[in-house]
């Protein structure tokens, strides 16, 4: 066991208030620059307008920063919250935390949700949200001890660098023989040397006797955390029961929770097998529909994809209960036990790997032209323990491999590495370099937007081609789905507030496979409703997976099966039962719409959030190269002829690529118009005054932002 020492820098004692109807009614504020700790009340207006979770985070962050604040300025805040339903141990998927900050990768507001016990334990310790500002000059731990009712700022020395070691040691130390009482937030060395750092949130797995990790991956939150001098956050809490969250109507809560839990137990083994393989079930499905990213999103299919399919991971995953919060029957946070890495500092040692999930398998596998499941497991392990976002790592490495194969960069740029697609050793070495802070890995760790500038300035690389094949928007790397054949999903990525992450809208099947969204109006409606409903999970401390990754047996007979309205009704009952606020499904959308528009205006305040920022690279829309076009020539020729009425006789492939591009880019702009109108925004993508007033978020400071943009 490593030795480490702690020195108390500051301590406050507080009197914990019991949670009332899902709310602790206080927030905790720590400033690392001056060592101050403050406890503030949650107002009735905060609950009414912002609900909780991401809403509270955004409200705190709004007051912490200015429009000119950069991610590494001391005033930037890192905010973590649960939500009023968070911490309920009997309703599936009720343990999420939401983290927000000014992003190290995008420069704007970012949010990321994550499992583990931290958010619920924070609330039960007395705080709906935690805001951390300032920077510490020494490696620091913040301890929130809900049992002893104290908050400590501690200087730490001698801790290891890697997240899985940090979380295990601190769980052991602060748990005092009760490791289940502890949840830790930590990053790793990769976050110190890159802009794509992630945060690991822990819980203790009693069955395996191990600390487990889930990640708040997107937007460089780990980088912000490390820049503040933080080594870890630790929360300590006691036993959790249904009454810990003080539901207003415990009987109603138990009834609706039982309905949803039982349905998962009955239907999941017939449907997606989340409880045995998690999101790994998606790999072969995506591949069969030409949606699995292969070689930097050039293609959507590969003959070897089944080597990384659910049957393989079913064998690799350790059997057992894998809920990342107490009582979740979906239980999809699987792990590989006794994995032995073939590279890096843990080479030859047995480690436990949390994951991989679909995104890491696709991003660090097929998208790099690699179809080796053990390689994906190793990339997963090192990304997590180094504190790196495995999506941004995968998409960024795919980009440099594409640049290398396209002749945009060479071995001079890569430090001598052969970055051809399929080179496993090179991909792993880049990740180790990110952790060591050396070599080309540090360049890759800056993310695609900055790499495009570096490659153009330093090596004369073609800016236009990099603009087409660099899969980022708003500065954030794309997650791992092909959107070329789904205009609605192009909008799902491009119009997402924080950047191209699918957690706002995943519409590929509705649009491309089922053809449920044939018109711009229907696509726009979907790009209104789905982002809003998904936002609601983030307000409440919930996971979205139980909503639509398992569905009622009779769901297909309902009017709008994609919305899984039976579950939406259950969620409304769940909200009412906990908070005592009687709501119907439409109210959930109204709650989200306020926060969603507020976040858009927040982005505007930070210099983003206009139409131009909703652009996406052409590879997300269609074939960039003649080679890509030729690989699906029947499809593209057919579309030119039937959809666009083009006589293609005698046209070269290059000419057809150009024509198809013109049509698809026009359609994307038309989609923006339709979505903005549906959302009550201007043609420039700014919420209209009437929209802001209708939603009741017309605070003076919000109006001032709109006025400064000429919208008021």
């Amino acid at each position, binding site marked *: 066991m490593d030795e480490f020492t702690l020195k108390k820098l500051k301590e406050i004692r507080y009197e914990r208030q019991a949670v009332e109807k899902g709310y602790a009614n206080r927030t905790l504020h720590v400033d690392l620059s001056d060592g101050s700790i403050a406890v503030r009340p949650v107002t009735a207006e905060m609950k009414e307008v912002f609900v909780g979770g991401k809403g509270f985070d955004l409200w705190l962050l709004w007051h912490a920063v200015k429009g000119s604040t950069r991610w590494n300025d001391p005033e930037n805040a890192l905010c973590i919250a649960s939500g009023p339903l968070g911490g309920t141990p009997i309703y599936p998927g009720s343990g999420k935390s939401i983290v927000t900050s000014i992003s190290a990768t995008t420069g704007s507001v970012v949010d990321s949700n994550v499992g583990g016990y931290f958010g619920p334990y924070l609330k039960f310790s007395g705080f709906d949200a935690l805001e951390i500002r300032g920077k510490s000059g020494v490696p620091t731990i913040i301890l929130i001890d809900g049992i002893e009712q104290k908050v400590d700022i501690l200087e730490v020395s001698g801790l290891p660098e890697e997240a899985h070691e940090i979380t295990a040691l601190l769980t052991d130390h602060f748990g005092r023989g009760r490791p289940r009482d502890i949840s830790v937030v930590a990053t790793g060395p990769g976050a110190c040397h890159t802009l794509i750092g992630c945060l690991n949130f822990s819980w203790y797995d009693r069955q395996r006797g191990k600390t487990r990790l889930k990640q708040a991956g997107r937007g460089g939150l780990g980088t912000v955390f490390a820049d503040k001098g933080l080594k870890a956050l630790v929360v300590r809490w006691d036993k959790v029961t249904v009454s810990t969250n003080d539901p207003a109507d415990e009987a109603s809560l138990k009834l609706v929770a039982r309905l949803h839990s039982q349905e998962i137990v009955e239907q999941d083994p017939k449907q*997606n097998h989340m409880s045995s393989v998690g999101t790994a079930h*998606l790999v072969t499905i995506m591949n069969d529909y030409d949606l699995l990213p292969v070689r930097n999103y050039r293609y959507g299919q590969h003959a070897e994809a089944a080597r990384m399919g659910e049957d393989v991971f079913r064998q690799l995953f350790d059997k057992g209960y894998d809920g990342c919060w107490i009582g979740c029957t979906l239980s999809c946070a699987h792990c590989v036990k006794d994995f032995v890495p073939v590279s890096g500092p843990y080479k030859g040692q047995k480690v436990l790997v949390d994951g991989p999930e679909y995104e890491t398998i696709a991003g660090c596998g097929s998208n790099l032209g690699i179809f080796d499941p053990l390689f994906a497991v190793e990339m997963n392990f090192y990304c997590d323990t180094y504190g790196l976002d495995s999506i941004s790592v995968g998409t960024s490495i795919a980009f440099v491999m594409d640049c290398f194969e396209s002749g945009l960069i060479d071995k001079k740029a890569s430090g001598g590495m052969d970055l051809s697609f399929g080179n496993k050793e090179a991909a792993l070495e880049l990740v180790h370099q990110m952790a060591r802070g050396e070599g080309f890995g540090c360049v890759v760790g800056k993310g695609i937007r900055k790499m495009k500038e570096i490659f153009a300035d330093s090596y004369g690389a073609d800016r236009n081609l990099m603009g087409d094949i660099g899969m980022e928007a708003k500065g954030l790397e794309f997650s791992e789905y092909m959107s070329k054949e789904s205009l609605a999903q192009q909008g799902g990525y491009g119009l997402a507030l924080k950047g191209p992450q699918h957690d706002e809208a995943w519409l590929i099947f509705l649009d491309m496979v*089922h053809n449920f969204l044939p018109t711009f109006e229907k696509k726009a409606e979907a790009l209104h409703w789905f982002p809003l409903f998904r936002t609601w999970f983030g307000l409440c401390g919930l996971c979205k997976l139980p909503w639509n990754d398992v569905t009622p047996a009779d769901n297909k007979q309902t009017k709008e099966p994609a919305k899984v309205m039976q579950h939406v009704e259950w969620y409304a009952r769940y909200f009412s039962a906990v908070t005592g606020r009687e709501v119907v499904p439409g109210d959930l959308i109204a709650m989200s719409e306020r926060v969603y528009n507020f976040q858009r205006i927040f982005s505007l305040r930070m210099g983003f959030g206009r139409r131009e920022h909703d652009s996406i690279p052409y590879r997300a829309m269609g074939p960039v190269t003649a080679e890509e076009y030729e690989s699906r020539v029947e499809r593209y020729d057919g579309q030119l002829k039937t959809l666009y009425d083009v006589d293609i006789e005698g046209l070269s492939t290059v000419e057809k690529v150009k024509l198809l591009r013109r049509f698809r880019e026009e359609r994307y702009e038309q989609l923006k118009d339709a979505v903005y109108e549906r959302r009550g925004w201007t043609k420039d993508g700014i919420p209209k005054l009437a929209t802001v007033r209708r939603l009741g978020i017309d605070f003076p400071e919000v109006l001032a932002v709109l006025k400064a943009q000429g919208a008021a």
Partner: protein
Amino acid sequence: MVTVDGRQIEWREGMTVADLLRELGDSYPYAAVRIEGHVVTGPDFGKAEIPDNVEVCLLPLVAGG
């Protein structure tokens, strides 16, 4: 016999998923089915043969992420 979401359907030699869906008279646009737990997706419905005495689950939605 093939069991489809609890219903018994007569099996015949060479029966594909597409055949089965036709016989069910179910026009819902299924994206995938599970045959004894293994996924078969839409593009393969016309060629994936169903063995006798198996259970088939129809997966109407693929939710993603």
